[in-house]
């Protein structure tokens, strides 16, 4: 691995870039929700309050961290970095400034499935490690919800792979680029199910059941404070970006699009612009859905996933298998 690769992974378009996107997503989320609700939203830090999420993060990181007496110290202290690692590692498989990602492997989609599962597992471990009563209930809900959305999420992820005959995110993006047809048009149901399952993975309304603030305070995050809370919140925003980027790559062609120039550097910029446009479109769809809906109950969510979305995802996969 040379210095350029390392810079790509750590700075651009790797970790630093995606963390920056996480802050922008947080700001956009708050701003969109505020506008939809007839409010103003963040205003003071930076132009239009765009630096508010950054300020919030550094505020949390610099605050005192309280570790509960009965908490599992090892999990409680080392869990947040591991939790952060899951979406951070996942993002390096997303093509941003080209049709190929920083790291591209023929089977990287399988690794992404592992990342998604690991993220939920870490949330569960963090919650149990904190040994709080609210957290205990939240983890029960989290696992039930995970058991609900996992299957439709996987099936809807596999559908584009079947269409592209590739198990790599870069391969799927390249296939969409060469055919010129986004998979959202070939598998619209899968796209919708992926967005809904992403809402559940991200614990956003109507699936914010494991962190329902009016029932169980902050869910599995209740006992966290200071530095660990800052990282947990940053991780949730990074997962937000990661899942949106995944949806954009698998269904909207990711960084692909009509190429306007032959200069390599300019080509990179054009790819980046396509990627960001699609990313923010997906983001805005998720913001709008989560603002416009109320929270449902856990058994209603599970029923939705098992009896409606899983059969629909299977039907879509069947159609794709017949049509391809």
């Amino acid at each position, binding site marked *: 691995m040379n210095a350029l690769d390392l810079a790509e992974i750590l700075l651009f378009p790797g970790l630093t870039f995606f963390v920056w996107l996480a802050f922008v997503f947080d700001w956009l989320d708050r701003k969109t*929700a505020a506008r*939809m*609700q*007839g*409010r103003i939203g963040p205003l003071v830090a930076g132009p239009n309050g765009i630096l508010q999420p950054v300020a919030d993060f550094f505020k949390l990181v610099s605050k005192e961290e309280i570790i509960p007496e009965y908490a599992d110290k090892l999990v409680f202290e080392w869990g947040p970095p591991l939790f952060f690692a899951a979406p951070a590692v996942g993002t390096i498989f997303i093509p941003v400034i080209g049709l190929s990602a920083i790291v591209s492997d023929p089977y990287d989609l399988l690794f992404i499935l592992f990342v998604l599962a690991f993220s939920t597992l870490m949330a569960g471990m963090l919650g149990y490690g904190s040994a709080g*009563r609210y957290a205990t*209930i939240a983890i*029960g*809900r989290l696992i039930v919800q995970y058991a609900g959305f996992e299957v439709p999420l996987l099936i809807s992820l596999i559908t584009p792979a079947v269409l592209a005959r590739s198990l790599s995110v870069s391969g799927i993006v390249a296939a969409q680029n060469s055919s010129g047809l986004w998979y959202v048009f070939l598998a619209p149901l899968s796209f919708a199910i992926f967005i809904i399952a992403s809402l559940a993975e991200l614990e956003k*309304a*109507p699936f*914010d*059941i494991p962190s*329902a*603030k*009016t*029932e*169980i*305070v902050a869910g599995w995050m209740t006992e966290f404070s200071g530095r660990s809370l800052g990282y947990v919140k940053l991780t949730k925003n990074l997962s937000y970006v990661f899942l949106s980027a995944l949806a954009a790559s698998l269904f909207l062609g990711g960084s692909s699009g009509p190429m306007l120039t032959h200069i390599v550097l300019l080509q990179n910029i054009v790819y980046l612009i396509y990627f960001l446009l699609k990313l923010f479109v997906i983001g805005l769809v998720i913001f709008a859905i989560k*603002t*416009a*809906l*109320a*929270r*449902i*109950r*856990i*058994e*209603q969510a599970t029923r939705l996933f098992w009896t409606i979305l899983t059969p629909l995802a299977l039907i879509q996969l069947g159609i794709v298998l017949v049509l391809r």
Partner: protein
Amino acid sequence: MRSQTSAGLTQYSPENMVPFGPVHPALKEPEYFKLILEGEKIVEVIPRIGYAHRGIERAAQDRTWIKNVYLFERICGICSFAHSLAYAQAVESILQFEVPKRARYIRLIVAELERIHSHFLWLGLVGYWTGFDTLFMWIWRDREHVLDLIETITGNRIHKSYATISGVRRDLPDNIIEPIRREMKYIDERARYYKDLVGSEETLLARTRGIGRINSDTARKLCPVGPLLRCTGIASDVRIDDPYAGYDEIVPEIKTSREGDVASLLALRTEEVRESARLVLEAMEKIPAGSVKLNTPRSVPKGEAMFHIEAPRGELFYFVRSPGGTVPERVKIRTPTMANLLTATAMLKGQTLADVPVVLTGMDPCFGCMDRVTIFDVDKSREWSVRGEELRQFGINYYGNGKKH
């Protein structure tokens, strides 16, 4: 998980007990509910009340009749006018005052405006408690229109200091009819919109339909008041059953619903908002000219009176006894929340933890109102403080040792 003791009481292991309050994001006032869970399902609710006890009834015995109007207003930050109105009317009936007709109409107008503001506040909170923040933000923005109107009329948004013994403290401002017409039209429109919204938004319906359902038989046993009673189909409203202020001439129409669940409470309260807007408009059309208050004597003759009115949350009782002098001997208050607490506890059993905030709010609780009452209520008969265990025992006995339900 559950075991029977020799006394036949059900004992619960502490791991299944989830404390709900006294400090909890869903409760804006301190109150404590022990919830015993089996999984997500609630099998037992043990309320422990008294956290917001302020000793207001005792304080009233040291203040003059007129000062007490403002003291009782402080009982509740939402239905403050209802409290001062009930107290003023109780004192008026000891004094045998005939309140000027214009004052009675103005009282009706402000009371109905307060009902709109209280119901909107509650609707918004249900949005908040079901995780539907957008509904909360929208309704509270519309509530500002009513608060502005109340401020124009009375000079204050929340603690109006408007009612007084023998009338209201000042006349309506000039040219108030136009703003009232405009705002009431707006409120009516919005209430209609929210009625459609709460009846059609699927995620909200999933959280409210069939939740906390009680039927009219249970309601008759547990004696809830206000919308909680009316949502079971029992048409009971003090404004019609025992008219006060201007309600003998401006007659409201009782809205009821048969479902008895939280969804029907939502629809019912939007209906009541529309009815209140209509009442305000009708009263503005028919309001007579004249004075708005009489001269009030400093001392009140010996006697006692009880008065009940329909506060936004339901029937509000005031009992006033005068020893003949400048201060009351005893004032006893029973607020709607006190009457509704047992019903809410009954509604919670069998629901899931996710439903607790929604069902508890379903009764529109005002613990600040209630707590002062409870302590005095029990003090009167015996010397004991209300402990959760005893209330639970009371509940068990009430239900025939758990066999009936």
